[in-house]
């Protein structure tokens, strides 16, 4: 199976929810790997094979009982000395044009699909940046090129979540909309019943199904675009163990708030 988690904005919760979904599949003994075509991050994780990938993919790899490797994040864009540097599986990506990057990402993805039962893909930023549509590698263009069903995550904490979800759906074109199967409302504090009429309306307007309303989860995990957390050095195995344990606990905590089986069905 394949699924792509995309977000209405950055920090919507794509990384963590992708990791939890990897962990869920792993608990059902599915051979799963994470994948993010392109990552824009100041923090990278150096894998055993010497590649640099986003810290989020490393977490998702551990959740999948895998060692992080370069193929999980074929293209990494990293701020370096006031400039953006592109790393493509160890190669100097700065010399690659958009088309070459896209082809490279697709090739790596296809290889993963051959090897694994499931590939859990994370989008990058918002998929509805209509000013950058031509340049998109990691979101709608990628999903459409490989027919990957998508789940949209909206962060309710900053308000306007229904507008964010509806507006994103509106701006991704017919082909994107065909693949956008469901949505998740993330970081919710209050009484779920209060949201019901809004969720119903979005479902009937878009045909997407609401796959969950998640509470605000605060657990110390390595986060992208955050300060270094020291996982590169000694005690790494202990740290990894504690991250995976935290994910297992979260999975239990959120079991009633998210329909994991439903996501599997929707995307099959």
């Amino acid at each position, binding site marked *: 199976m394949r699924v792509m988690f995309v*977000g*209405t*904005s*950055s*920090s919507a919760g794509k990384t963590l929810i992708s990791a939890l979904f990897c962990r869920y599949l792993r608990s059902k003994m599915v051979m799963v790997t994470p994948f993010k075509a392109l990552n824009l991050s100041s923090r990278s994780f150096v894998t055993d094979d010497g590649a640099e990938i986003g810290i989020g993919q490393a977490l998702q790899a551990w959740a999948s009982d895998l060692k992080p490797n370069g193929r999980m994040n074929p293209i990494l864009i990293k701020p370096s000395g006031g400039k953006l540097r592109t790393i493509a599986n160890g190669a100097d990506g700065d010399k690659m044009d958009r088309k070459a990057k896209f082809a490279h990402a697709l090739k790596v993805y296809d290889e993963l699909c051959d090897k694994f039962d499931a590939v859990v893909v994370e989008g990058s*930023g*918002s998929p*509805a*940046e*209509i*000013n*950058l*549509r031509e340049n998109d590698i990691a979101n709608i263009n990628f999903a459409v090129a490989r027919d990957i069903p998508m789940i949209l995550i909206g962060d309710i904490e*900053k*308000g*306007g979540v*229904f*507008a*964010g*979800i*509806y*507006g*994103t759906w*509106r*701006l991704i074109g017919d082909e994107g909309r065909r693949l956008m199967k469901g949505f998740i409302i993330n970081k919710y504090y*209050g009484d779920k019943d*209060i*949201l*019901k*009429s*809004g*969720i119903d*309306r*979005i479902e009937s307007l878009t045909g997407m199904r609401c796959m969950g309303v998640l509470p605000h989860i605060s657990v110390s995990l390595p986060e992208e675009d955050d300060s270094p957390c020291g996982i590169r050095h000694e005690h790494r195995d202990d740290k990894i163990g504690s991250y995976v344990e935290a994910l297992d606990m979260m999975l239990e905590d959120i079991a009633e708030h998210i329909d994991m089986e439903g996501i599997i069905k929707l995307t099959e």
Partner: protein
Amino acid sequence: MDCLKKVKEEIDRGWTGPNPECEYGPCHYAGQDCTYCFCPFHPCGDTELGEEITTSKGKYWSCLYCHLMHRTPVCRYIASRIEELRIEDPADSRLRGLLDEAKERFMVPGKAIMVVGATSDAGKSITAAAICRIISRKGFSVAPMKTQNMSLNSMITSDGSEVASIQIMQAKAARMRHPDHNINPILLKPMKGRNTQAIVNGKHFKDFDVNSYYEKFVPTAGTDAVRNAVRTQKMRYEYVVMEGAGSPAEINIYDKDIANMRAAEIADADCILVVNMQWGGGFAYALGTVELLSPEDRKRMKGIILNNMHGDPSSLNAGIRELESILGIPVLGVIPNIKMPMPKEDSMTMQNTAAPGVRIIVIKLPRMANFTDIDPLYHENVSVRYTADPNDLKDADIIIIPGTKDTMDALRWMRSCGMDKAITERKGTVPIVGLCGGYQLMCAALRDPDGIESDGVPEAEGLKLFDAVTEWKAGGGKRKKVKGALAANGGDIQGYELHAGTTVTHEEPLFILREGDVTVNEGSARIADKLFGTYVHGLFDEPAFRVHLLKMTGKFLPSKYSDVPYDRILDGTLDELADVFERSLNMKEFDRTLGVSK
């Protein structure tokens, strides 16, 4: 009578226009027309224009909120009619008839504009402030309004009303002289648990939970309060710039929401949508917000402002064109990320800065309140850090304990995390300042026998920094504006008090307040131990105490604002803000869209 003589002079002079050099200062709003400095109709007795008030000198006809007389078109009209009718004597009975003529002609409701946001923190407050200042600079009378604001940062207006601090800032942007409760008819202050205290028309009304608020209050008293405020302000001002709350497209509570499109409907406001571009997905949020509105409400949306853009605004062009063509609503401009210190709504006011200089640590208490008090310090050579971590106090140069909605609860929190010890350990080494709730915490004992502040804690030991006791009693506490001097050097201070609970102290006073002809000691100061406590909010607004405190650290390095009152600093900031908006927006489109022109 002198007034008549003055009016006679005015009549003889004819229309003279504004008088920016007036030694008495603008009376009703900055930029008014002063042809009739003394109103020829005073006391008109017209309750649509003024009201009879009782002062210490007896009854007086107050024109504080009359905005008919000092508009240029009105002054021109009356001057020309006086000439036509050859009125020379102020006692001429025909003069009074001109008031009715002018009312008939010019007393039309002002225009309402409403700024709504695609999310919270979209930048509504500063956009509304910028629009207020832009409209004021064009020579119109203008007032801000947020029908419903949820905030623990509130202030007291000169009529004794409690309103959200951010609306006071916007009133300054509008250059209003006398904002009252109408700038924020409903203020919601979250309390411990799930209840909220509702301040309606500036006074405490009732406490609600979410359901009773939306089911009982909003449809009745809430809607009435909004209607009254809108009607009043539209009659008084040429423009009312309203601000929504959160997103107007929360479709699950659409019909119950009195802060956004229902308020726009009541005010018949044209709306502008502000979108924060920082998080990504801005176009989706903009489109989704507009399209989820009801068809009638969608007609009110007249423009979109893309705010807080990091990087090159022209990179958005393709997206802007597509958004405009889908919605048929113009994007009025892209506002860059603004670097200057800017008062913002609650959470963002807690900005941590990392400049060199005096390190100010503000204790992040549970339900911290009125921390806009700290804002003037951002203009000094200091770094400000809000913290809940006791370890952060070790390298502080000044420790500030701010106000809180629940002092007893804050005390419990301090004890549980060791913040109490972290503070008392630094006694004598660095200045420690307690504001309102923070001052109460510094006392030796806190007594609440009737459970007014907190349930179930009749008495508690405070931080024992002052030989003083705070007690809560029914009818205790204060809410009023105050003026006076810093006891240590006589420097001016002014601000307001807003507290339940009263403190009896055996320390030297921090301030000497003037109440009419008498002086009253306020607060506690023990200079030797560098301890200060006060109920006066706004204590850093005037330079006197700000500089006094910073000097105590031995690290004081004056900034260009160190001798400037905060009001004036803010006024300059608001002008700069309006400049940024005028540069970034298509002002022709803005004027045309919103009908802002002479």
